[in-house]
């Protein structure tokens, strides 16, 4: 009896060891050529001009928005430099930043009687780069992730399997799916930024590629002072100053996702 139970213990131990052994193999499959293994002497670093923050955030001064026309330049700047296609079929639309009316941008906050100003104004909406993002929680491959360095909720287009769980999880409708190859629908291609292939999810990336070379996000530059961008955890930053001095609201804060886009009303 005893020897047989010991034998089965050894069997199980062997199986367990096999399981542990399989871990690194699986990892190796994921990222062929781990760091340093292939190029022992090469290294990586950030660019000298790269802007850094614990958590990037944005303040939208909606008092400065007169009409939807004030938002259009932001949308155009963003969609142009990121090769966002203009899909002909409405349900396939790709949007990184776009205008919405108050009751759509802030459902639950709409009142029956509301100031004419708010009722007639458009509000720019985009990915909130939440501090507690549900899209990241649900992604089965870590293709969307919260970047430790700067709090940007990023998309890894090479890893996304297109399951669209993140789209179901996002309470802000900030994500778009490439229902078909976007290539034919990009009017003026920006060769410095990649396109996407069909079958992956995309969204605003807070212009990570521009921050890396010391430039502000394209929408902020094009916003005529409506958008302000900065480090949420630097008390001296421009965004913190605005948040301190004005009444701001954020979208659906009751859901606990901690959005980092603030709206001055």
């Amino acid at each position, binding site marked *: 009896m005893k020897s047989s139970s010991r034998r089965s213990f050894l069997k199980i131990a062997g199986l367990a060891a096999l399981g542990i052994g399989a871990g690194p193999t699986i990892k190796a499959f994921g*990222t062929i*050529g781990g760091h340093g293994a292939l*190029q022992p002497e090469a290294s*990586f670093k950030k660019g000298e001009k*790269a802007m850094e923050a614990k958590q990037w955030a944005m303040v939208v001064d909606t008092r400065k928005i007169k009409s939807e026309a004030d938002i259009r330049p932001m949308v155009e700047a963003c969609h142009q430099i990121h090769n966002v296609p203009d899909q002909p079929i409405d349900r396939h639309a790709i949007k990184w930043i776009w205008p919405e009316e108050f009751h759509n941008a802030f459902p639950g906050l709409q009142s029956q009687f509301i100031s004419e100003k708010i009722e007639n104004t458009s509000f720019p909406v985009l990915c909130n780069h939440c501090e507690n993002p549900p899209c990241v929680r649900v992604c089965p491959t870590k293709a969307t992730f919260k*970047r430790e360095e700067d709090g940007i909720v990023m998309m*890894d287009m090479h890893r996304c399997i297109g399951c669209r769980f993140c789209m179901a999880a996002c309470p802000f409708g900030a994500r778009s799916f490439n229902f078909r190859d976007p290539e034919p629908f990009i009017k003026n291609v920006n*060769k410095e930024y*990649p396109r996407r292939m069909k079958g992956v999810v995309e969204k605003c990336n807070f212009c990570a590629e521009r921050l*890396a070379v010391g430039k502000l996000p394209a929408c902020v530059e094009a916003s005529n002072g409506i958008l302000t961008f900065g480090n949420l955890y630097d008390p001296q930053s421009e965004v913190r100053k605005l948040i301190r001095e004005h009444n701001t609201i954020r979208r659906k804060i009751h859901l606990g996702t901690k959005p980092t886009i603030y709206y001055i009303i």
Partner: protein
Amino acid sequence: MPKNKKELYNKKGVIAGIVIFAFIAALPFLINLGKAAPAPELVLTSKAKEAKECVRSKEFIKREHMQLLDEWRDTVVRDAKRIYVNPQGKEFNMSLSNTCLDCHSNKTDFCDRCHDYASVSPYCWDCHIDNPKEMKR
């Protein structure tokens, strides 16, 4: 079923099956017999020639450019680091679109020749636009 009798059942059918299977399995080799393609010759753009050396040595790039690119894309997107420092201390922007394809702007005479020869079809250019843009495929 008599267990002590060792004999092949349906002998004819089985042997014929094995022969047919072997023939089908060998078909790709038979078709390409004596048709070895010559090793491709790559064309360097003047910009590439001028630079003399790529981000790494020719041998390294030949052998491991795919692993290098794979590592680049993870580092850029996930670690927010965009500068590659090669063993000689030279710095490069880790970008297929803006670094690699900037010099090697002749996809058909450079990238495609080897890829066709090796019969691989990476889909990098679906998204990373060849620079200047060439005809698709």
